[in-house]
């Protein structure tokens, strides 16, 4: 007998039968529904206001030659038992047109912004590492950027260049990757 018919008959049947049918429907509902009240879908999606940094040092005196900041905004949602992070993945050391070497370790990064519970800005002039990633910010379990003022994460990312021992050369534009992840 179809469930719909049972439902229609539910109000007419004796208490015991109604209980059985109702229990069956409850069980099926628990099994079939995507548990909206029990689980959070992790999300990580960011946008940078600036995606190109250019450094043109004219002397060899600055350990932290600054770039203008790029504003990082986006969504970060972690499960109650999950975590999240935003990190900068660097390439290998860069060779200039004249053969000079630009070491990735000449770069450093600072991420800074307003303080939010569950969000930790990790990097303060943190030295980058060739072919590796350096964490900019981390997010605790249960973090939900939609609850923040503005509804999203919002902070500055700055890159610095140490020009003190940098070879005088023209180095090709090279891609770095900002990786946002959440579980």
């Amino acid at each position, binding site marked *: *007998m179809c469930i719909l018919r049972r439902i229609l008959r539910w109000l007419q049947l004796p208490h015991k039968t109604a209980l059985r049918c109702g229990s069956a429907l409850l069980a099926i509902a628990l099994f079939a529904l995507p548990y909206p009240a029990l689980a959070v879908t992790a999300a990580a999606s960011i946008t940078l206001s600036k995606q190109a940094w250019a*450094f043109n040092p004219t*002397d060899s005196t600055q350990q932290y030659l600054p770039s203008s900041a790029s504003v990082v905004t986006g969504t970060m949602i972690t499960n109650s038992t999950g975590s999240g992070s935003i990190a900068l993945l660097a390439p290998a050391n860069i060779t200039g047109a004249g053969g000079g070497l630009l070491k990735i370790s000449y770069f450093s990064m600072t991420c800074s912004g307003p303080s939010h519970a569950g969000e930790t800005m990790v990097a303060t002039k943190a030295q980058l590492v060739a072919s590796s990633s350096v964490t900019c910010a981390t997010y605790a379990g249960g973090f939900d950027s939609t609850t923040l003022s503005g509804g999203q994460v919002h902070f500055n990312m700055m890159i610095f260049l140490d020009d003190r021992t940098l070879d005088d050369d023209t180095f090709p534009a090279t891609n770095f990757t900002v990786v*946002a992840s959440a579980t």
Partner: protein
Amino acid sequence: MKTRISFPLIGAFVVLSFALNAVPALAVVQNTTITVSVTKQASAALTLSGSAFTWAHVQADTDHFLASDGGNITVTGTLITSFGSGAGSIAIVSPVNITGAGGGTLPIGDLSITCAGTVVTGQTFATAQTALGPSATTTCATYAANYNTALNFTLGMFLDDRTLPADVYPATNFTVAATAT
């Protein structure tokens, strides 16, 4: 046909549903590419601790290399040459011979310079007490490609008074020129 669903079966469904819910979620990852470019250009910038060499009381005709009254001045600054093919130099650009108030002539060749300092790879000083030339450029130091060390050395100027006519010679500008490629 009568369908019966027992409470143990309901419990099994509930347990299964929670078990499925407990499966670890896959990480959500988003990559955003940024581009970094660096150009470090050849440059030169000098600072001198003083800007005048004077000989106010020359009273003999015996000095081939008479030091100036105030002694050496110190040259500091930055000189950066290109990697691989760059070069640099610091030199003195002299004026024409100088005529004294009484008509005497101070040949620029009576003046000489010495640049000296600690040994730095890529930096080479000209021979000590190198004579200047009128309207000429006289090298003080040269720099190899990929030079990138802060400058710090002394520049001394000397006067050969052996044949210099006794006279008062006006203050005259010389130029210290730094170049880098």
